[in-house]
């Protein structure tokens, strides 16, 4: 058995429609998790609120367990699943820019759209900034092209690089996630701040 939606058989328009529906679901889940609040997001950096860590780690381990078991029961073909390509330099530089932007602006790109959608003005300003950045990058692309494309490794998987099975990798990540959940809980108690739920 292959993927539920065969990639070669559907048109681009239908593909976009499916992406749109999934996108709405994603935005809804983000908003429900409280990710439209920049104070909640920034709490991750100061340790008083680790919702971000919990939500993303939960999403990751649910997806990982799902894929491993679906693969085992022949419900999915792992060989045609798209693995994001790895440009080493871009990943490092982009990561730093993203991190700085996150702590300064209080949003990551996705959550800024989410917060702008419920009418937060700081999120709209943040979104405007992102768009200006995208435009500037696009216009000056030839300048960055060499750095951007350097050290291309292709669609590599961590498990392949480490030489372990996918299942063992999943176990490793789950063990790490559980550990991080407990550390997060501990940090929330240690760096507790006054409850902000009512102000959000």
């Amino acid at each position, binding site marked *: *058995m*292959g*993927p539920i939606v065969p990639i070669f058989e559907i048109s681009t328009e239908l593909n976009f429609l499916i992406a749109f529906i999934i996108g709405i679901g994603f935005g809804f889940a983000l908003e429900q998790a409280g990710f439209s609040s920049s104070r909640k997001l920034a709490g991750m950096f100061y340790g008083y609120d680790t919702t971000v860590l919990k939500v993303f780690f939960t999403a990751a*381990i649910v997806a*990982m*367990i799902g894929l*491993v*078991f679906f*693969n*085992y029961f*022949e419900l*999915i*073909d*792992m*060989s*045609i699943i798209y693995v994001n390509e790895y440009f080493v330099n871009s990943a490092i530089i982009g990561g730093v820019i993203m991190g700085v932007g996150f702590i300064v602006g209080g949003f990551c790109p996705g959550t800024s759209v989410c917060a702008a959608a419920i009418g937060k003005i700081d999120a709209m300003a943040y979104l405007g900034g992102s768009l200006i950045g995208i435009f500037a990058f696009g216009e000056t692309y030839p300048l960055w092209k060499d750095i951007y494309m350097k050290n291309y490794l292709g669609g590599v998987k961590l498990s392949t690089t480490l030489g372990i*099975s*996918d*299942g*063992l990798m*999943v*176990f490793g*990540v*789950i*063990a790490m*996630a*559980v550990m991080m*959940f*407990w550390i997060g*809980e501990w940090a929330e108690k240690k760096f507790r701040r006054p409850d902000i739920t009512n102000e959000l």
Partner: protein
Amino acid sequence: MNARVILSIIVLGFGLTAAMLPDRKNDSIALNERELLQEMLLANNYLSVDEVAELLIQGDPSVQLIDVRPASEFKDPLPRAMNIPIDSIFSENYAFVFDQSAMKNVIYGMDDQLATQVWMITKQLGYKNNYLMKGGLNAWKSNILDPQYPSQTAPQEEFDLYAKRMASRQFFTGAKALPKVNIKPMMPVQGRKKKRVAGGCS
């Protein structure tokens, strides 16, 4: 026990199970035996030599002829054919020839044997637009380059096909379109020679 502890134990249990599952590779592209058999019985995976000749005469630019004979036997190919021996179909130079969506690949060999193997491999890899020229070069030679005149009692279609093949033959070899007809009198009349007048008064 507190809910957090229970949840931790459950996900760790899932992780442990996942770690112990054997690796399994599912291939949704490769066909199983039944599907392959079905594909092989499907007429639209094949092109007859007549269809190939017609495509070549029309000069269809999307047709790509692939000769899978070994390089040492690559002689007198069809026009515009490229030689990709079966042992080099996966080499970097040629892999893109089979895995593409723009051209119509017509695979042929001396007979059907090698070409069928190559065609089946492309099918198993999920490549599209690969067709098999049925009968290979042997069929090409006997049907297009040296068509046989149908028997007198054959239906009209066979005569039409024969005329078409002779026209193709002219296109590909430059030979005369119409067959050389040796008109042999059915019953030669013997003894027409003028006889000397015998007798009389000369």
